[in-house]
C-alpha cells in the first residue's frame, strides 16, 4: 500500500487510471453487446418474436410507416415487403432513417440482432414477401467468373464494374459494395431497397445470386494486386495522383537540381 500511495502523484498516474477506466467500460460494453448476438438466428419466427416485434415497431417505426405498417405520407406501407427487406434496412442501419433525403445512408445498426429478428417477424406476419435467405446461397462457394458476368451486365451500370459505387440523379447513389455481408447483398437483390430495382428469382436465379456474392467476396479478398488501389475509382484518382504526387515530387527534384549552393 505504501508503494501505491507514494506513486499516486507520479505524472503517469493519471494516464494509467484513464487507461484502466477505458478498458473496464470498453470490456463491459463488449460483453453486453455480444450477449444478444448469440441468441439471434434466421430460423422460423416464433409467436413471441412477432409479438415483441409488434411492440418495437409501434415504438420505433410507426411514426412514419403508420400503425399496423399501413403507411403514411412520410413512409410507405410495409405490408408484403417481407422479412428480407426488414433485415436489410434495419440490419444495415438505414432504418430508422436519420433524416429525410434522397436516400437513407448506411450507419451503425440501431437494433441488435434479436430486435431486428423480432421486427422482421412482425413485418413478415403482415403479408407474404421475400424471406431471409438460407445459408446455402450465402456460402460464397459459387462460380465467381459467372457471378462477374452477371454483375457486369446487371449491376455495374450503377455500382461500377469494380463495385466501387456510383452517382445517380438528384443526390441518389449506388453505394460501394466492399464490406457488405453476403446476406445483405442477397436481400438487396430480392427486395430492391432505396432506389435499387428488384432482381427477383426469375431475373437472376438464386444460384446466380450466389455466384454474384461469390464474385464480390472474391474480388474483395483478392485485394489490389498492383499496389494501393487509390480508391478503385478509375482514371480520375489516377489523374489526380499523377498531377499532385507524381509531378509534385518531380518539381521538388527540379528545384533541388537548379538550386545554387551559395
Amino acid at each position, binding site marked *: 500500500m505504501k508503494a501505491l500511495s507514494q506513486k499516486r502523484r507520479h505524472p503517469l498516474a493519471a494516464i494509467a487510471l484513464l487507461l484502466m477506466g477505458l478498458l473496464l467500460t470498453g470490456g463491459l460494453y463488449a460483453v453486453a453487446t455480444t450477449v444478444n448476438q448469440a441468441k439471434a438466428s434466421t430460423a422460423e419466427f416464433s409467436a413471441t418474436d412477432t409479438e415483441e416485434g409488434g411492440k418495437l415497431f409501434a415504438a420505433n417505426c410507426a411514426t412514419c410507416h403508420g400503425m399496423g405498417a399501413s403507411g403514411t405520407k412520410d413512409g410507405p406501407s410495409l405490408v408484403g415487403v417481407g422479412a428480407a427487406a426488414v433485415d436489410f434496412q434495419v440490419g444495415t442501419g438505414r432504418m430508422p432513417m436519420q433524416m429525410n433525403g434522397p436516400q437513407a445512408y448506411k450507419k451503425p445498426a440501431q437494433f441488435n440482432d434479436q430486435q431486428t429478428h423480432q421486427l422482421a417477424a412482425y413485418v413478415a406476419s403482415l403479408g407474404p414477401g421475400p424471406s431471409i435467405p438460407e445459408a446455402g446461397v450465402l456460402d460464397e462457394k459459387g462460380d465467381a467468373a459467372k457471378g462477374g458476368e452477371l454483375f457486369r451486365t446487371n449491376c455495374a451500370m450503377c*455500382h461500377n464494374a469494380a463495385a466501387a459505387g456510383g452517382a445517380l440523379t438528384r*443526390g441518389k447513389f449506388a453505394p460501394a459494395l466492399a464490406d457488405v455481408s453476403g446476406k445483405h447483398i442477397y436481400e438487396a437483390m430480392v427486395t430492391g431497397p432505396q432506389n435499387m430495382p428488384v432482381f427477383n428469382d426469375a431475373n437472376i436465379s438464386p444460384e446466380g445470386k450466389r455466384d454474384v456474392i461469390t464474385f464480390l467476396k472474391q474480388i474483395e479478398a483478392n485485394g489490389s494486386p498492383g*499496389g494501393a488501389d487509390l480508391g478503385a475509382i478509375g482514371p480520375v484518382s*489516377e489523374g489526380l*495522383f499523377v498531377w499532385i504526387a507524381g509531378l509534385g515530387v518531380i518539381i521538388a527534384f527540379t528545384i533541388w537540381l537548379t538550386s545554387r549552393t551559395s
Partner: protein
Amino acid sequence: MSATSTAEAPAFAAKTKGGRITDFVDQRVGGSGILREFGRKVFPDHWSFMFGEVALYSFVILLLSGTFLTFFFDPSMAETHYTGSYTPLKNVEMSVAFSSSLDISFDVRGGLFMRQVHHWAALLFVASLGVHMLRVFFTGAFRKPREMNWVVGGVLLILAMAEGFTGYSLPDDLLSGNGLRIIDGVIKSIPVIGTYISFFLFGGEFPGTMIIGRLYTLHILLVPALILLMIVLHLFMVVVHKHTQYPGPGRNDGNVVGYPLGPVYAAKAGGFFFIVFGVIALMAGFFTINPIWNYGPYDPSPVSAGTQPDWYIGFVDGALRLMPGVIGNFHFEYVIFGHVLTLNVLLPALVPAGIIFTVLFTYPWIERWVTKDDREHHVLDRPRNAPTRTAIGVAGFTWYCVMWAAAGSDLIATHFHVALNDVTYWLRALFFLGPIIAFVVTKRVALALQRKDREIALHGRETGRIVRLPHGEFIEVHAPLSEYKRYKLVGFESPVPLPAVPNEHGVVTRKENRRAKLSQWFFEDRVAPASPAELEAGHGHHEAVEAGEAQKTLSH
C-alpha cells in the same frame, strides 16, 4: 573549320592506343567539333525550365517499357476463354487482346510492373507536356523567334493525346471499350461523313473485329514515329534559337547566362533522367493503375458507372457531360434529308477542343499583330509584367479545368455527398462565367503585384523598424534594395496601346482599327516600371513619393 586547321597543323599522333582509335573516329565523324559546339551550349538554371526534359524522359521510358509490353501483347480480337491464374475471370469469354493483357498482369514475370510503368509514364508524359506549355505561355517564350516551335509543341500535345488514347483502348477491357464507344458516338455525330468514317475505322459496325489491331499499329508505329519526328524538330529549334532566360542583371536578348552543357549540365540532365525513371518506378511499384481485371472483358452490353477516360481526354468527356439534351422545348437533334444531325454530341465534343487548340496555335501571331512587335525576345516576361496575356492564359486554363472537373462530376457527387444534378448545374454556369471571373481576377492580381514591385523598387523594402522623429511623427524605415535585386523589379518592358496608323494611302483600314482596339484592351491598364529619374527622386524623400504615389502608378 576543324578540317582546315588539321590540314595546316603538323600531323597529330596520339600516344596511347585508345587515343589513336578516338582520333581515327574523330577524323571521320568530326565528333570533337560537335562536342565542342554542344558542350558549350549554355542552359540557364531554373526549375521551371525542366518540364520539357521530364516529358522527354517520360517518352524514353514509354519507348522502353512499351517495347517490353509488345513482346507479350497480342492485339487480336479473336474470341477465347481465359485460362490464366486470375480466378474471378476463369473460363470467361474474352478477346485474345484482353486475355494477353491479363497474362502480362498475372503470368509474365514483372509484367504488371511494366504495364504500370508504361501507364504512369504516359500520364506523366502528357502532364509534363502540359505544364511545359503553360510555362512557355505564361513567360512569353513563344514570341519571335520561337513561334514555330510553339506550334510544334502544340502538335506534340495532340499527338500525345492520340497516342494515349490509342494505348488506353488496347487491353480491350470494359472501361476502355466504353470509352471507345463514346469516341464512336462522337465520330458518328459528324454530319454526312460521320457514319462512313466510323465504319471505315472499325471495319464495319462498332465494335467489329478490327479496331484493336488497327489501334495497335497506330499506337506502336505511326504515332510514336510522328512524336519522335516532332521531338527532333523541337530540339533542333531549341538548339538554333538557344534557350530563353528569366530577366536579371547582365541578361539581355543578345546573350544567355547559365551553365554550359558540359560537364555540369550534362551530368545534371543525365541524373535527372534517372530521377524521373525512379519516381515513375516507385509509382508503378506501389500504386495500381488501370486494374483491367476489375473491369472485365469488353462486351457492348454492360456499361459501368464512373466510366472516365485518362485525364488528358477528360476535358472532352466533361464537355459532353455538361451539354444538356434539351433546353426547355428546344431540341438539339434534327433530321435533315434523312441524315441525323445531333448537335448535343457534335457541339460539346468538337467545339471546346477546337477553340482551345485554335487559340493555342494562333496566339503567338495574335499577340504579334496586336503589339506590332517584330523583335526577337530571348528574355522572358515575368507573368505579372504581361497582365493581359497572363489573364487570357488563366481564363483558358480555368475553362479547361471546368470541363476537366465535369468529367468527374459523378465522383464529386458521391464523394462530397452532393446531388449530381447540382454539380452539373454549377459547372454549366462556371463553363461560361469561370473564364470571365478568372480573367478579371488574374489581371487585377497581376497589376497589384506590379504596383507592389514598383513601390519596393522606389522605397526599398519595409524593415518593420518604427522611428520617432524629433517633432513626434512616426515613420517606418525602408531599407533600399541592392542594385542586383532592384534590376528584376524595374528591368522589363511595359508596352503602351498603339493607336491606329493610316496605311500608305493615308487610310485607316478597318483591320487596323480592330488592331488598335485590341491593343487598347491589352495595354490600357498598365503599371510602368520605375524610371531612373523616379528612382533618384524616391531615394531622398520617402514622404514626397508616397504622397504622389497613388496618382503616379498609373502613368496612363
